[in-house]
């Protein structure tokens, strides 16, 4: 048996995971590839992750990362946007993408039959390697983006989110959001430069799952990454400042509800407290219909339809967020209930019963995290981009199970410091709610 295992290991150098057989290698240009062979459905999903996120947006040009990403499909090589859209649609392929703070992505879902696959992949390759960023299209897309931003900026949820980001991150890139002015300021040369600097193989991850062979996957990954720009060293991103004292901000808005966000910068990927916080947060506000926040705010008092808490780990400490919306005249009451619930949790932690229930759900529900190609693709992208170990999924259930009560309490004490919490209220902007 051992001999066979060794043979298998030698044939596929990085067949690491028992839960999911993830194959891993690098392309000639240095892009890291993560592949799972899934033959049952004749389709292929590809997600290319680029180190081209909004954290690299220059001050005054927030939105550049997003726009660069969106413009890739608007013209490449000799094809205009219509021709590109036609190529994808004719073979039933779906492409997508986007840019967050850390990561930009370009995705493709295609049939795996040869002719369709070839057309879809070659068009994707064109998008990545020879985008033309047409000026007329850029002008139009900027107009549309500005209109969309103006609309969003009038909505209480959006206003709250922006204020929250600013309260937590200030001038740090994580705190800066695009505005009509910043979008207007972006020119074609900015897009070209951003693409040239950051859409580079050495900082790229190619995730694939579908009905293709390892050899086909290798060829596709080579094609997609061989002619990416050489790239340049990315700008240094300052560290997220540790907040000692949070602030409270109330913004008047005529909406029928107040939108409330409470939080602070909390955790980066790779933090040893990750699993303790995951398990603890399930109890506090992550566990769907069974969390403390849900119980206190919604079930017992009917104060909100949506109330939740979650951690968003990023390359640098991403936020811990508590959120809810409540009829404006209930703002003070709702705030009090949330604060009391959080305080009780921080002081005494979960009960043994709650801890066991959290683990039962997370571990018992693990299979649901990887029961479709789409879900697996997302994990491959995550593992690749954030440098998680190949056995991340293998070890996930055991790491959840191993979390102790003490670890939860200590992790929350370290990462959710009450003094450092900021509170944003959009809606009832009048004075103290306490």
């Amino acid at each position, binding site marked *: 048996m051992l001999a066979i295992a060794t043979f298998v290991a030698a044939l596929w150098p990085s067949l690491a995971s028992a839960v999911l057989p993830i194959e891993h290698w690098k392309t000639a240009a240095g892009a890291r590839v993560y592949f799972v062979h899934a*033959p*049952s459905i*004749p*389709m292929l999903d590809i997600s290319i992750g680029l180190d081209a996120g909004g954290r690299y947006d220059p001050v005054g040009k927030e939105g550049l990362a997003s726009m660069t990403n969106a413009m890739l499909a608007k013209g490449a090589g000799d094809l205009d*946007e*219509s021709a590109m859209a*036609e190529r994808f*649609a*004719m073979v*039933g*392929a*779906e492409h997508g993408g986007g840019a967050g703070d850390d990561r930009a992505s370009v995705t493709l*879902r295609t*049939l795996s039959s040869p002719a*369709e696959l070839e057309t879809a992949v070659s068009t994707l390759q064109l998008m990545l390697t020879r985008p033309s960023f047409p000026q007329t299209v850029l002008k*139009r897309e900027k*107009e*549309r983006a500005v*209109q969309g931003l*103006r*609309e969003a900026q*009038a909505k*209480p949820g959006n206003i709250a989110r922006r*204020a929250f980001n600013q309260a937590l991150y200030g001038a740090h890139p994580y705190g800066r959001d695009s505005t009509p002015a910043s979008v207007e300021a972006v020119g074609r040369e900015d897009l070209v430069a951003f693409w040239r600097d950051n859409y580079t193989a050495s900082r790229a991850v190619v995730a694939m799952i579908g*009905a293709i062979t390892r050899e086909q996957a290798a060829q596709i990954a080579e094609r997609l990454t061989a002619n990416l720009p050489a790239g340049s060293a990315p700008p240094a991103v300052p560290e997220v400042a540790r907040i000692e004292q*949070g*602030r*409270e*901000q*109330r*913004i*008047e808005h*005529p909406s*029928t509800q107040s939108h409330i966000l409470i939080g602070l910068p909390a955790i980066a990927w790779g933090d040893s407290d990750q699993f303790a916080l995951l398990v603890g947060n399930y109890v506090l506000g992550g*566990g*769907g*219909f*069974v969390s403390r926040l849900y*119980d206190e705010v*919604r*079930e017992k008092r*009917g104060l*909100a*339809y*949506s109330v939740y808490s979650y951690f968003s780990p990023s390359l640098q400490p991403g936020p811990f967020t508590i959120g809810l*919306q409540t*009829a404006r005249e209930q703002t003070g009451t709702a705030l009090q209930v949330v604060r009391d619930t959080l305080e009780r949790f921080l002081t005494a932690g979960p009960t043994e019963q709650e801890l066991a*229930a959290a683990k*039962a759900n*997370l571990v*018992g*529900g693990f299979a*649901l995290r990887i*029961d*479709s190609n*789409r879900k697996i693709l997302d994990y491959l992208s995550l593992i690749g981009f954030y440098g998680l170990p190949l056995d991340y999924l293998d070890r996930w259930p055991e790491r959840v199970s191993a979390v102790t009560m003490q670890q939860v309490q200590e992790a929350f004490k370290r990462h959710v410091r009450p003094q450092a*919490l*900021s*509170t944003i209220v959009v809606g009832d*902007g009048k004075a103290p709610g306490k």
Partner: protein
Amino acid sequence: MHPFRIPGSFALMLATLVFASAVSAQTSERLLANGMKVIVIEDHRAPTVAHMAWYRAGSIDEVNGKTGVAHVLEHLMFKGTKAVGPGEFSRQVAALGGRENAFTSRDYTGYYQQLHKSHLAKVMELESDRMTNLELTAEEFSREIKVVMEERRLRTEDQASSLVYEQLMAAAFIASPVRSPVVGWMNDLQSMRVEDTREWYRNWYAPNNALLVVAGDVDPKQVFDLADKTYGRVPSRALPARKPQIEPAQRGVRRLRIKAPAENPSVLMGFRVPKLEAVDASDDAYALELLSAVLDLDENGRLTRSVVRGSRVANRAGAGYDMVARGPVLFLLSGTPAQGKSTEDVEAALRGEIARIARDGVGEDELRRVKAQYVASRVYKRDSVFGQAMEAAGLEISGFSHADADAILERIRKVNARQIQDVAGRYFDEDSLTVVTLDPQPLPKDANAGKATLRTRH
């Protein structure tokens, strides 16, 4: 907006496609003695299962003064039975590692759990228990109705686009109950009583008004046996007569303007058009489906190409049509004007696209392009056990069979350019049109900038 996509089967793939593995989802069905239909869709890729119970009861079955009750009852289904206390259903599902939720539409109310296949028996027991043993107390009702009001505020009251849609439905339909919002009018929620929810539950929550779909790594025979032992024990009940409430023909254009907090104007149009009455009924519904696809299925749809990219009349434009429904339907067109343009310009441009098709038809390339996506989309759907379950249930609840999906896709693929041109010419007269224009009320200038109180917490 995208039109409803109907799934198809492998046999109908484009000629150029060759498949290594030609297994499509195996689906079986059984009718229990009490009238409940059970459908099992097999997918053995992962040891998980989606378990869904749907009731043929939605806002279309509500009456004036009690709108929103279907959705309220959906919320109350989590509040306890004789055997399982309030909130206990969710705790038990969570303890099994499950994910769950529920949803209400015009046509149906559905409840689902997704979990490891080994726990299927338990959720069938729990779900069948609340089908018949739900306890509806004034106390739980008084709390949950507040939650529903918050939901209405979040999704509708504070969203201009939702208000526009709500007004469109209420104006386009005078007699049909589809005119009322699923979440209910706010005043109906404020005056609702627990007795109303008991009435609803008694009326509609019977096995002969329900459908079970189980999709995933399961053996149909075992599922049918389990269904017999759980749902099969619930006695059937006579259902109230459903009044047809046929919407009278529209006799002229209807135009509304509404004011709501927003930055940009927009326009939403609805044309009264037929739905799919039966799989082999006339071709009009299929042609309308393709018309919607040609207009807005993808980035090269007529609306995006001509109105957004070409003439720059709109910054956003869309079309939508749901062929499969229990009640009357609309063909929707919408748009947001670009700088220097008006909603009148957008309306003219969108209607102009339909008129152009009525005059000149559509190209063969266009047809090939949209049809290719229907076929591919069928393959992609197999990656989602949940998606397949939803699709099967949606067909069944509207009077079709899940097995009609193949035939429907075949009819869609057979639609030709002439048929699309024909429906574009027949159904888009102004007399069948309702238009809602949003007159945006921007925030007072100091709302965002000035009145912010910054205070440090203590």
